[in-house]
């Protein structure tokens, strides 16, 4: 019993780390531009496939076929290279997203940017399907497929790695946001773009940066999760949705709240899965809706005031 609980705790923390990272990615663009990427799920899927493709290309011959890469393909520093490259590529895609789908619509009534980012995502996904096909692909973990025994619980090393990487990244981002000049400028833009411009801060450049960073996190998230689940162009939607739920649970405009919300959601999900795996999603979303009914701006969110 205890072992099962421990196991649920570890996998909850691991997936929660991914949710938290992506929740933070939503928060980064929302606070700076009041918009976010509804295609983040597609970005995650494409990030994962880019990662697989890079591993395949980096290990010619010895890595096996594309759809079933051998574990050796992820070794020798290839995995981190693939992860970084996927992050960078998706970051560049984020710039395109901002220019094509956000900037023409941001700040205008009707929230057309919701639809335009969805449209962007659908196009991206369909192109991905054309290139890689619909079948899921296995991505080897650099730490192999073995299971570590931890007080009776079987823990996969990739899960631990995901948790560690996510936590390190979030720490770095938190410090960046709070301590560096750039982070302070981002928070200034978040508070009010016009006042930030009065400081001489180039607001558009900051917004572009926010989207690049947010998209890069999605790409990285895809590469991190793929070895646990397996890469698929459809894997991202559920992850992004839960990450977003975590974000609104913690409060979209509060980065630390988002991190909390992401972990809470991961733990909640693995907790419910202990009891009834098939009700996992439904239970999670019901709880979110309940929380929102009580606190529409999340647990740590600021109350938005309508100025009359």
């Amino acid at each position, binding site marked *: 019993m205890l072992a099962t609980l421990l196991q649920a705790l570890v996998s909850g923390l691991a997936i929660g780390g991914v949710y938290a990272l992506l929740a933070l990615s939503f928060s980064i663009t*929302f606070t700076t531009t009041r*918009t*976010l990427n*509804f295609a983040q799920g597609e970005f995650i899927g494409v990030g994962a496939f880019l990662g697989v493709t890079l591993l395949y290309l980096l290990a010619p011959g010895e890595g096996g076929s594309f759809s079933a890469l051998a574990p050796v393909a992820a070794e020798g520093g290839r995995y981190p290279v693939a992860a970084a490259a996927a992050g960078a590529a998706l970051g560049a895609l984020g710039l395109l997203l901002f220019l*094509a*789908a956000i900037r*023409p*619509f941001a700040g205008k009534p*009707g*929230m*057309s940017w*919701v*639809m*335009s980012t*969805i*449209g*962007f*995502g*659908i*196009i*991206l*996904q*369909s*192109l991905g*399907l*054309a290139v890689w096909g*619909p079948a899921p692909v296995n991505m080897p973990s650099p730490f192999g497929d073995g299971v570590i025994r931890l007080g009776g619980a079987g823990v996969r090393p990739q899960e631990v790695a995901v948790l560690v990487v996510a936590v390190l990244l979030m720490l770095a981002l938190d410090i960046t946001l709070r301590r560096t000049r750039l982070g302070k400028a981002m928070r200034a833009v978040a508070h009010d773009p016009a006042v930030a411009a009065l400081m001489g801060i180039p607001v558009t450049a900051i917004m572009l940066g926010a989207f690049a960073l947010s998209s890069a996190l999605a790409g990285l998230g895809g590469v991190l999760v793929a070895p646990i689940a397996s890469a698929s162009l459809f894997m991202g*939607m*559920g992850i992004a*949705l839960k990450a*977003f*739920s975590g974000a*609104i649970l913690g409060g*979209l405009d509060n980065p630390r709240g988002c991190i909390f919300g992401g972990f809470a959601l991961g733990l909640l999900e693995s907790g419910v899965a202990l009891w009834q795996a*098939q009700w996992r*999603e*439904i239970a999670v*979303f019901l709880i*979110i*809706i309940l929380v*929102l*009914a009580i606190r*529409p701006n999340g647990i740590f969110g600021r109350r*938005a*005031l*309508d100025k*009359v």
Partner: protein
Amino acid sequence: MRHALLATAVAGLAALAAAVLENDFYLRILFNIGIYFLCAAGMNVLLGFAGQKSLGQAGLFAAGAYGAALLTTSALDLGPWLALLLAVGIAAGCGVLIAVPSLRVRGPSLAMVTLAFGIVTEKLVTEAEIFGGAMGIYAIKPLTFAGVPLEMVQWVWLVVALGLGLHLLLRNLLTGRYGRAFLSLQADEVAAAAVGVAVHRTKVLAFVIAAATCGLAGALVAQQNQYINSDFITFHLSIFILLLVLFGGAGSFAGPLLGAVTLTVVSALVARWAWIEHFVQGALLLFALYVMPKGLAGVLGGLLRRARGAEAPRRAGVPGLDAVLPRRPDAPAPGTSLLEASRLNKAYGGVRPAREISLSLEAGQIHALIGPNGAGKSTLINMLSGVVRPDSGRIAFRGQALEGVAPHAVCARGIARTFQNLRLFRELSVRDNVLLGQHARMRNGFWSSLLGLPPAWRAERAAAARVEEILRFLGLAALAGQPAGALPYGLQRRVELARALATEPHLLLLDEPAAGLNPQETAELGQLLLRIRAQGITLLLVEHHMDLVMGISDHVTVLDYGAVIAEGTPAQVQADPRVMAAYLGTEEAAEAPPAPRLAVGA
């Protein structure tokens, strides 16, 4: 009437085409057009009129489809027609379910909640045993006619008939009181509530209409196929339903049909490759957003208008001095007390825009509220109109407590207001803006409006007549057909006044009615306010134009730092040294009263 004939002719042509066509493939395309039209027509109410984005309509489609499936195949073993009806009811119930978050959550979070609803439904029907998962549910009873299952051509006729019926019913509903109420939600919820629209109830209604039609479409698909599985229920279906409306033209009566025809045909052409179908869908979505924000209907409508091309008047006419404003029967007698506010307090963090404010308004007078920037004048107006809830204190209007009453209910009691930063429904015509003021005074209910029954016509006609009279009173009659947002600023202010008067108020709250007006317009406004008082309406105005305030007010209250510092007749207030100090910052006077300190510690 012409519209009904045209719609019937289009439906007749479609039915005729179905009768002539032999090919099952083409019949199926016609059937799909009908199905998607049903989805789009309801979605148009939600998206095009009420302005609410739902990204989870596939879930409601599923509710109808699986409802019909389970009701006919399970132990219940209901007949197909009854099952169809109940399935629509189930979907409508689910519509209430997704409407509930929309009452609390806004913006991107709401969009994401509806999206989650669609995804959760998809998971549910894939994984839960009762829905048969990817295997699906077989042997769903098809609809029958005289005991015989319908043939393909009859299915087409059925959806055409249903589509025509739905279109005509929705047109009844949307051209009247309810249509205007939906549009007001899309434009500005705060203003909608201020003119008496019950925002929550109206929003739920829009969700339910969209849910019911999607459910109907789902049930029909399940019954026609006699089979349903989880492959039908995808995120792409939700987006497709949204796209039908966006591409066809949100908020237009022709939009859903244009969208359903074009997109069904395009999809049929590219359906052979899944990824191309999705690519086209995404590309069309972006195309619609970039190039035709009002959809195909907007493009076609623009062409028609250019062909006609008429120049609209931009100036107000002469006010009809003999015009009489509509009033409620129970008008208070002049000189009696109308509103008593006592010891109102409000704080936002460290700022306290209201501290221990007491105010008493006498019926039949013009009261003015003045004070420097940030003195708390707008906050007081907001508290009196129910937009902001005071932290403490009492408000009694005609002896009844008003604190905690929702804005639309405050309006129903007889308090109307205008806004400092103009909150007109800009896209709507002047007439529709003012008709919205009549919303809460009209008594025609949902069913009578939907079915176009005589009580609904009568109520619409009576309201229209009252609105004409109000427009005449203000000299706006010549501008009635123009979009309110296209008028010059001074006239927009007057339209907002007309809208407030249409609620037939006892008390009219005006938040800076002369802001942005030139001296000439300000003088005209003064005359107008005096005429409104002469009709027996009490006014409370917040204003900075002192010539106006001192010229027309019976009684002036001065606020500073959220507290009342002086009140009396205009002459008394003008002579008060404390008022001088508040406005001009005279140094010696600044020390005279023990001025409350505003969030200044240290």
